[in-house]
């Protein structure tokens, strides 16, 4: 039993001379939800297809559930539930027929679970896949990924095309997986989603992992925007000098200051209280600032 559900070392894939991913060191722990975040084209799908052994690494290794992805793909597939990012299924089969087919290939027979999951997702399994909306196709893909209660779920953009209510159902399904000690690795380009369900986040940009931390740690680094209102005029440069403040500007004819703070707001608040603070508004800290900072690439010299 490995403590890591997924471990890649210097995982690299070139397509000809084009880079897919480079020197990727991922660690996904057993029992967590890992959000694999990045813009489209960053290499999320390439990474997932490497884990599934659909493509082979140029160099480096990937271990899934302790098994080498190239050496033991069948055993990995037996224990993994997979949802592809580009979901194409057999249009001429019904959803139920497709699930029966994949279930049979797995030697799966707990068909009642299929009905439960399909019921929760409000999916009609008697309809031909060719007639499904993209949301229903996504649901059918989720059913086949979850039905056999795999130890590890590898989901490429799982909430793609799901309406908000069904997204909630999906989040509950993920929570059930975690509560039984299993692991979820999901890719997304939607930040609030990852923030909502992930324990840890890896951010990938241009094929390389630029950050891998807990959601909480990332939030610590998130930029908070405060608007401080005072009884009388204040000098905004007093605030600009405080550590962690990235910008401060005057509002309300000098009677208010808008500041952006990275990390803790404590020092700013202390300074504000000393200056007869009357009111504070703040935008809730989210990962967007951190995320965008990684995306825009402060170190984009290359």
């Amino acid at each position, binding site marked *: 039993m490995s403590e890591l559900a997924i471990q890649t070392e210097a995982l690299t894939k070139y397509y000809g001379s084009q880079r897919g991913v480079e020197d990727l060191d991922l660690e996904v722990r057993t029992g967590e939800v890992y959000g694999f975040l990045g813009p489209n084209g960053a290499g999320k799908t390439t990474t997932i*297809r490497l884990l599934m052994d*659909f*493509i082979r690494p140029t160099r480096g290794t990937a271990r899934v559930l302790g098994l080498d992805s190239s050496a033991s793909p069948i055993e990995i*597939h037996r224990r*993994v539930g*997979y949802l*592809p*990012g580009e979901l194409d299924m057999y249009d001429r089969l019904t959803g139920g027929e497709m699930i029966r087919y*994949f279930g049979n*290939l797995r030697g799966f027979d707990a068909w009642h679970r299929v009905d439960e999951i399909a019921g929760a997702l409000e999916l009609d399994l008697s309809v031909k896949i060719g007639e499904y909306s993209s949301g229903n196709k996504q649901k059918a893909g989720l059913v086949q990924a979850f039905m056999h209660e795999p130890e590890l779920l590898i989901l490429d953009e799982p909430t793609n095309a799901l309406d908000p209510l069904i997204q909630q159902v999906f989040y509950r399904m993920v929570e059930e997986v975690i509560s039984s000690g299993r692991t979820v690795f999901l890719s997304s380009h939607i930040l609030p989603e990852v923030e909502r369900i992930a324990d840890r986040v890896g951010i990938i940009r241009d094929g390389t992992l630029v950050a891998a931390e807990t959601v909480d740690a990332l939030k610590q680094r998130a930029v908070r925007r405060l608007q401080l209102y005072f009884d009388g005029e204040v000098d905004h440069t007093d605030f600009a000098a405080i550590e962690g403040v990235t910008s401060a500007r005057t509002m309300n004819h000098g009677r208010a200051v808008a500041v952006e703070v990275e990390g803790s707001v404590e020092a700013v608040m202390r300074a504000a209280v000393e200056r007869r603070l009357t009111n504070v508004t703040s935008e809730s800290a989210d990962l967007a600032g951190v995320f965008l900072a990684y995306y825009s690439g402060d170190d984009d010299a290359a």
Partner: protein
Amino acid sequence: MLRSVFTKTIFDRRRGLIGWTMGMAALVVMVIAFYPSIAGQREQLEDLFESYPDSLLALMGVESASDILSPVGYLNSQLFANVVLLIVLIFAIGAGTAATAGEERDGTLDLLLAQPISRTRVLIDKLGSITVMLAGIIAVSFVALVIGGPLASLDVGISGLVAVHFGTLLLALLFATLAMFIGGLTGSRGIALGTTAGIAVIAYFMYGLFPVIDALAPHQDISPFYWLLGENPLANGVPWRWFGQLAGFTALFLAGAIWGFGNRDTGT
């Protein structure tokens, strides 16, 4: 029908299978039914066929005009050297192409390969089902000739019928595995279908036309159609060497498909 890759492949192709089976039945019954009246006009028809160029007779699967109205010559020229091949090869090449290149093009390969089943097993299952379906289509012709042939004085002997039908299955499998090989290697449905069909057409004309060109006549046996028909299995029984060659290349192409598909990055 969705128990395995083997049965699903048959399920997927059931409409084509039914269509080609019925087409084969209609064709063979018609050819049998026409024989008595054609044999009755033997002299006029022989005069007509005498005027045909040798190359056309060669493509019809007979060596001389007098040959064409004998039971063996009639069946070779009306069925085994052309339309039967056309039916089984269309089916074989289509199914061989669909096996992996088709799924890859449709984008369904990802989910199939995500199941705990090896790529080799996928190919073997698919080839197995293609073999069974081809055998079914070919068996229709065999049964029709065994039962209907004697009624129309088309007495050719059962061992000859076994030989030519068996060889036809081998030739169809050769092209099915060639399509699987090219499709497995390239992942392209268009390349697999186009290349295999092109090779089949060229090989067919090599078989038919090389004998009438003196310089090329000795090389006729590079065509797999010669391996099937060159020694007239309907009259002479199984030519083991040539049928062995058909089977050998089929095995080679299958091994190539397993290697090519097994070691390649599959696309989305």
